């Protein structure tokens, strides 16, 4: 189904048309706009076109052109066209050229759309406008219009049969390559891989690659976080194991230490028991010995008991010795006594006067003698003799006196001594049994008896001594103070009783110690540790050493745990983030696939289209050529690319250029291409108006007539504008212009008039 677009009216504030309004007749013939050079013909049709398509301010030519179209009146550059669109509805499109703003009003229902109509804009409004324009006019890009139905002045020679003509026929909505480029650009923003899988991708990562990188980084972080947990667990276990071992060892050490005291106590108890047993033995032995000694003593005493009265004193032999001496002395003294008793008595002592008397006598004798002899010698002798005799007598007397004295004193002494001896004897005999019968004669007997008694006494003494020793020993053993009184046997009994008591105490202590030992036996020791202090000490040392090592291991593991084993990120949190990111990545991937599919869809669809429409285009162009030239030119053939198309001339195919075509033929061919392409566009269903500026240039009248006939034929199917200054040609063709533009100083003439006057 096709529909024709028609311009109906234009109101201008554009260039030389400061405030012009032109009604455009609806007819099935070309609308002719005529006027001399500079009358604004081109400006008028340009306004029609530019009102719809605008100016691309990025292009210098467009910028310059727009600048030149500022109304000479100084008003804002604007234009408004009314068209009947390809959808059959009437539209008014108003454009403000200053900012490119357009307003599209449906004259049927009054609906309005306004927005950015800048052809360079890619925003939603501009795209929407172009979409609306394509729906109304069939085309949205001025390039497409100007390369087909809109033949600008002097642009006919640019006409070429090219692939773009096929691309234009994208429903009149845009260049396929541009569409694919847009898709590729959008794809490029998503990923660096080539959109069609061919060639090298971009080096700079795009969103997909960035997402992949981010996912890879997250996975690496996750692996690190998991790895931390992976080897944190063993570290924690190592710490726990080391700490647990330390605790175990502490318990064991505690048990061992707790056991050590009891074990030491046990040892002490055992030692104590040992001591007690030993002591018990000692005490028992001591007791036994005391009792034995006591028994022995008793036995001996019983065996050798001598009546008291028959017991010789211990020093009997000494006594005997002394007695013997006493007796001997006594005898001697008695002899002395006797002798002394026989000693001169008093009366036996010459009196004192004897001596002198004698002396005197002698002297006298002597003297007498002397006298007598009448020598002195006799006197001297007598004297000497007197002296000597006197002296001798004196001496004798003295001696006798002395002797008597001595005897007296001796007697005193002797008697005294006898008394003493008697006393001594008595004393010595005191205690000697049957002392009265003791005499030297009985000495031996007595001695023997004494010896016997002494031997008995010795035995008893020995037994006593033994007993005493035992008692002393027992006292030492019992640590008792020696009694001050009592007999040995009493003492022995006392000691025995003390020993018994001590033994009883020992037994009690032993029993208690045994009970304590039994209690100590409940100490719990680790397996393999003997219940001895040495073993426990050794086990303690071993375990303390092990504990130090375990403590070190625990601290080392804790340090490693702190330094390396504790992660900084939660793997769960990273996984959550990864899930989100993978979802985002999947969305990007989908968009990538969408764009790749869209790219391929356009390519494949266009390929389909091209395969079908290429021939149709060639056919349309060929038909136009044939129609235009009366068959002299045509058909168009393009076995290769369209750019290498050839045209049939006089039965042969020649290149589409001049030469080999003549100038006129070439122009006719170009026009045929335009018309053919335009006919080809008719498939879109929308036939935009054809505008031909100065079509008759370079054509002779015959060609001009042929062309006019062609244009009229075209006008039966679409609106055609013919802009020309060739008034003579128009006159020759009998064509009356619909709009006649005067020279710039004048105003537009009504339709049906020409600058030269009414049409013939």
């Amino acid at each position, binding site marked *: 189904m096709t529909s024709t677009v028609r311009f109906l009216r234009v109101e201008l504030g554009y260039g030389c048309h400061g405030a012009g309004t032109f009604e455009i007749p609806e007819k099935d013939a070309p609308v002719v706009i005529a006027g001399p050079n500079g009358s604004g013909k081109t400006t008028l049709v340009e306004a029609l076109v530019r009102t719809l398509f605008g100016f691309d301010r990025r292009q210098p030519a467009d910028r310059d052109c727009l600048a030149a179209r500022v109304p000479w009146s100084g008003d804002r550059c604007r234009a408004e066209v009314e068209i009947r669109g390809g959808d059959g509805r009437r539209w008014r499109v108003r454009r403000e050229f200053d900012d490119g703003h357009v307003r599209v009003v449906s004259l049927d229902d009054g609906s309005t759309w306004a927005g950015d109509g800048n052809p360079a804009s890619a925003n939603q409004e501009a795209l929407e406008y172009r979409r609306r324009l394509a729906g109304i006019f069939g085309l949205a890009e001025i390039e497409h219009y100007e390369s087909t139905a809109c033949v600008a002045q002097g642009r006919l020679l640019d006409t070429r049969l090219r692939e773009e003509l096929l691309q234009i026929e994208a*429903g009149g909505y845009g260049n396929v390559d541009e569409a694919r480029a847009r898709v590729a650009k959008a794809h490029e923003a998503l990923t660096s891989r080539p959109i069609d899988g061919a060639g090298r991708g971009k080096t700079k990562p795009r969103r997909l690659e960035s997402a992949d990188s981010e996912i890879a980084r997250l996975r690496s972080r996750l692996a690190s976080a*998991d790895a931390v947990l992976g080897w944190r667990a063993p570290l924690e276990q190592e710490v726990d194991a080391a700490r647990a071992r330390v605790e175990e060892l502490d318990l064991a050490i505690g048990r061992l230490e707790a056991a050590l005291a009891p074990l030491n106590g046990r040892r002490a108890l055992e030692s104590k028991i040992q001591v007690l047993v030993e002591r018990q033995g000692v005490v028992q032995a001591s007791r036994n010995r005391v009792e034995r000694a006591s028994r022995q003593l008793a036995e001996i005493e019983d065996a050798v008991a001598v009546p008291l009265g028959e017991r010789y004193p211990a020093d009997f032999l000494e006594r005997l010795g002394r007695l013997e001496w006493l007796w001997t002395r006594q005898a001697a003294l008695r002899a002395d006594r006797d002798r002394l008793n026989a000693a001169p008595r008093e009366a036996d002592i010459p009196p004192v006067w004897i001596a002198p008397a004698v002396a005197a006598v002698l002297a006298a004798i002597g003297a007498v003698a002397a006298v007598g002899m009448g020598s002195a010698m006799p006197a001297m002798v007598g004297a000497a003799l007197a002296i000597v005799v006197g002296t001798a007598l004196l001496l004798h007397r003295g001696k006798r006196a002395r002797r008597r004295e001595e005897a007296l004193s001796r007697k005193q002494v002797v008697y005294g001594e006898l008394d003493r001896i008697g006393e001594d004897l008595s004393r010595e005999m005191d205690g000697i049994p049957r002392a009265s019968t003791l005499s030297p004669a009985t000495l031996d007997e007595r001695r023997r008896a004494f010896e016997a008694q002494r031997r008995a006494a010795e035995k008893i003494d020995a037994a006593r001594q033994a007993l005493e020793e035992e008692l002393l020993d027992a006292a030492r053993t019992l640590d008792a103070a020696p009694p001050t009184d009592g007999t040995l046997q009493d003492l022995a009994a006392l000691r025995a009783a003390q020993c018994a008591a001590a033994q009883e105490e020992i037994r009690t202590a032993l029993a208690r110690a045994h009970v304590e030992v039994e209690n100590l036996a409940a100490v719990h020791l680790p397996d393999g540790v003997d219940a001895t202090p040495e073993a426990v000490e050794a086990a303690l040392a071993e375990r303390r050493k092990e504990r130090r090592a375990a403590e070190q291991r625990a601290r080392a593991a804790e340090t490693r745990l702190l330094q390396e084993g504790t992660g900084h990120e939660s793997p769960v949190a990273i996984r959550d983030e990864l899930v989100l990111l993978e979802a985002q990545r999947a969305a990007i991937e989908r968009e990538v696939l969408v764009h790749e599919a869209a790219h391929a869809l356009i390519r494949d669809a266009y390929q389909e289209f091209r395969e079908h429409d290429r021939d149709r285009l060639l056919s349309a162009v060929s038909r136009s050529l044939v129609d235009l030239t009366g068959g002299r030119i045509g058909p168009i053939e393009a076995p290769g690319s369209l750019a290498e198309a050839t045209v049939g001339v006089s039965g042969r195919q020649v290149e589409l250029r001049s030469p080999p075509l003549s100038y006129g033929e070439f122009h006719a061919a170009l026009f045929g291409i335009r018309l053919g392409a335009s006919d080809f566009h008719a498939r879109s269903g929308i036939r935009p108006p054809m505008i031909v500026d100065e079509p008759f240039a370079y054509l002779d009248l015959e060609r001009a007539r042929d062309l006019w006939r062609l244009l009229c034929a075209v006008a039966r199917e679409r609106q055609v504008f013919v802009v020309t200054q060739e008034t003579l040609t128009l006159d020759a063709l009998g064509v009356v212009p619909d709009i006649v533009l005067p020279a710039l100083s004048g105003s537009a003439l009504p339709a049906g008039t020409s600058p030269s006057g009414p049409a013939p």
Partner: protein
Amino acid sequence: MIRLLHLADVHLGASMSSFGDAADARRRRLLEAFRELPEAARADDVHAVLVAGDLFDRPEPGAEEKAAVAETFARLIRDGRPVFVVPGNHDSATLHRHPYSEPLGGARVFLGPVFERQSTETAGGPLHVYGLSYDMAREDAPLDSYARADLPGFHVALLHGSAEFSPHWRIGRNALRLPLAALSALACDYVALGDYHGFRPPERFGGASGAPACYPGSFAALDLTETGPRGWVVVELEDGSLPRVRHRPSSVPPLQDLGTVDVGGAAHNEAVVDRVAERVDPGALPVARLVGVPDVAVDAELVSRRLAERFGFARIEDASTFHASARLDRIAEDDTVAGHVVRLGRRRIAQAPDQGAAAIAERALRVALHALGVT
């Protein structure tokens, strides 16, 4: 009778990246909503507050988040409402640095790998809370360490872990697994759980007997999958009765899942926007899936933007089938490139091996037509 405020998975500091340009505002809103807890506790006159993990989104939260938590907890405690906290997966105490190494306004935090008990007297009676901080490396079966103390009062277990229906169940040992049977066997009056972001009251745990457990759900929607009620629960425990659980929404705008919205026949995107908007509850953020055959190639981003202008945020998934529209029928009739695109595009949609490929082909058709300037 004792009344407890049980919340979990606040994730203060979360990026909210799913909310795009609205992420910043939503993060701030989350913090503000958290600060409103003391007033909420007062309104329900709760006796204590239980926080079941993931209070923070990261192990090293920002100063603002930490200050807000400390201040909020301090206010709760000053009001006579003790606060009990267990770490979660995101703010795990097993990490090198974690937010629980510093005081948090007086809250009682459980940091050991096995159950510890902390007791307190409340106006509702004695409360015994048993909590732990999961550490796989030190104790991978911590539930076995639970032992109810022989004390009068209410016994509550506080755990951050995943039940069978939770996504984290599949993670493995990194997350604490809570088999329903093991939960049910805990001899306590209530099990306050965290980790699963959906609200799951006791009656939805299955199992007629045993300890009643509850997930309060996340405090606010953190991504676009978290539609439905978000906030916390108020739990009433009474001797001889099952716990009564009531959900309370936080003041963070919730995501409203509108499900599918039929945009068949819509001629322009604004009409699509209107069809979605008329179904959105006040204060909610719409999440919708467009279906039907519109007469316009729906621009999901444009529609989302327009809805975001009205509601603050919107997420639109376009599953509409523009390719079947009358408009494309008309284009398909033309022997133009666009017509070929439509026809070929439709064939490819029909021949797609699965729904995913069909959706891609649908979207490719739209992109192609848009690139050609058709739509």
